[in-house]
């Protein structure tokens, strides 16, 4: 009875995952979709704890299980609630890494069970036709271990790179090194599974450490601007690792959940690449990190930039008919979304048509700016996507760029040697005036110079985005 009930619960949970994901891909139903999946997950977890049986015995160690869940829930909720909107992407990466670690740990324990099997029993298994089953079991353990470890180590590096504690790092022949490393892992795993050697435990742990190493070197050379794509890819890796657990325990809900995320995550990764007009191989191999040096050298724009004062900016903007604001990561860092909304309201009250032009990868993640501006109550209709905005720029008087850089870099269109060549950009140059707010002349995340700043139409307004916007609001009020 209980086992049948558990099967039923797993079925419901699997359905909620599918429905949840479906709802998550539409703006109106997204939030409920997330909740539907969360309810399914809770059911599946509780059902497993209280109803799961193996060979007629229930699970034990309730103290440990509830203790672990309690710690995880408290820490997870606090971390997720306290994190600033700007730090959202690295938080996702960190949680993803935790899932990978979980899958790797399961494999470690299951292998330990296997390795300490009674030799007589193991012998019987090997002699009988069960050898195939044993090897299949081992194969899945190893796959779960490798993918889980790569996902864990990679996510931690991605997390560190996004919050700035880990710098880009690459060396000559790194791609060759990575391929070699992966080759060794595959070779060792095949040796382990096919021959079941006496030193299996040693080999297993070697695979574990090499996988962690691979995860680190896999993400290290990839530039910051591509990090969302990498996190999405690692996300789908963890899905596959979770599905391996489903194989091990013949657990359908782990299998459906894991494969679903693995497949959806892979597609999402490709969609993200498309939004940036880059191919996945390009992101992984022709990384920003390696190519940027060439780009900087070739694309160095020589010339002088001109600065504009606050009062001039205030005059220019309040007497314009149409103003576009292009937000970027600088806005997020300065937490300037509220000040930005205030400026927009003030200008609107003066009869200026104010809209936002959102590049698909502005900020550190697709949708980052939408979330941020929505937090400040900016109406949805005011946020225009890139294609729409590009049609409007030619009739725009002033474009105010707030801490965005690479997404407005004309080198993406003209300079074939530029690492961002081919990425669609916002054609802000079509507007009559371009005002760029930045903290300094330092290049953006892709590490390349931006010729836009030296163009005659462009004026620079230096300073922290929030401070500048507040001063600008005060200045316009005084006009």
């Amino acid at each position: 009875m209980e086992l049948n009930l558990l099967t039923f619960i797993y079925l419901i949970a699997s359905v909620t995952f599918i429905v949840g994901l479906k709802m998550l891909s539409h703006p109106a139903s997204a939030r409920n979709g997330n909740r539907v999946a969360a309810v399914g997950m809770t059911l599946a977890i509780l059902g497993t704890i209280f109803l799961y049986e193996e060979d007629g015995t229930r699970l034990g160690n309730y103290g440990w299980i509830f203790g672990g869940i309690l710690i995880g829930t408290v820490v997870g909720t606090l971390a997720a609630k306290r994190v600033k909107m700007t730090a959202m992407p690295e938080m996702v990466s960190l949680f993803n890494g935790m899932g990978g670690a979980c899958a790797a740990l399961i494999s470690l324990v299951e292998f330990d069970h296997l390795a300490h099997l009674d030799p007589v029993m193991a012998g019987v298994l090997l002699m009988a036709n069960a050898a195939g089953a044993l090897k299949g079991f081992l194969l899945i353990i190893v796959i779960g271990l490798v993918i889980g470890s790569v996902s864990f180590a990679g996510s931690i590096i991605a997390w560190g790179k996004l919050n700035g504690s880990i710098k880009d790092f690459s060396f000559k022949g790194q791609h060759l090194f990575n391929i070699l490393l992966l080759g060794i892992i595959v070779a060792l795993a095949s040796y382990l599974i096919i021959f079941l050697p006496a030193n299996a435990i040693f080999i297993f742990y070697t695979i574990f450490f090499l996988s962690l190493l691979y995860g680190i070197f896999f993400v290290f050379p990839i530039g910051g601007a591509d990090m969302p794509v990498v996190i999405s890819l690692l996300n789908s890796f963890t899905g596959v690792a979770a599905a391996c657990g489903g194989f091990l325990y013949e657990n359908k809900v782990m299998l459906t959940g894991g494969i679903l995320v693995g497949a959806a995550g892979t597609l999402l990764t490709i969609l993200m690449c498309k939004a940036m007009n880059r191919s996945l191989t390009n992101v992984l191999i022709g990384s920003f990190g390696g190519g940027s040096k060439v780009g900087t050298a070739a694309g160095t724009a020589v010339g002088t930039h001109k600065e504009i004062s606050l009062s001039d900016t205030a005059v220019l903007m309040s007497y314009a008919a149409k103003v576009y604001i292009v937000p970027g990561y600088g806005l997020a860092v300065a937490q300037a979304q509220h000040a930005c909304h205030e400026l927009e309201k003030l200008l609107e009250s003066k009869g200026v048509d104010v809209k936002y032009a959102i590049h698909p990868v502005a900020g550190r993640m697709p949708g980052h700016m939408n979330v941020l501006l929505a937090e400040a109550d900016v109406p949805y209709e005011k946020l225009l996507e890139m294609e729409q905005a590009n049609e409007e720029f030619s009739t725009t008087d002033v474009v105010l760029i707030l801490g965005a850089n690479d997404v407005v870099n004309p080198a993406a269109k003209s300079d074939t040697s530029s690492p961002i060549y081919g990425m669609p950009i916002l054609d802000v140059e079509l507007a009559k005036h371009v005002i760029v707010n930045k903290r300094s002349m330092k290049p953006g995340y892709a590490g390349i110079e931006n010729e836009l700043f030296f163009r005659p139409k462009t004026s620079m307004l230096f300073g922290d985005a929030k401070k500048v916007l507040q001063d600008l609001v005060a200045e316009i009020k005084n006009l």
Partner: protein
Amino acid sequence: MEQILSWISNHQEILYIVILMIFVGIEVIGRVPSVLHTPLMSGANAIHGVVIIGAIIVMGKAAPTNYLALIFGFIAVIVGTLNVVGGFVVTDRMLEMFSKKKK
């Protein structure tokens, strides 16, 4: 070869699920607007937290003297819960921003 074939036929039910789920996963998010890329990724991130179930099984089966299984299992339950709870809460916070503006 024979081993592989018998393994496949022994696990055919699971293999069918895998193949069907791959297609469902692709179909389900086929037309997501780029605005929702991040929340969707975050939601999917929470769903693969289903790996926690494996951690619970490992933990629940661990013999009282098997310290490796107890310790690794315990850590696995903690990090698995982090993945699930953190993932859903972060996604909800992101989407909270979206729902507000409908009013």
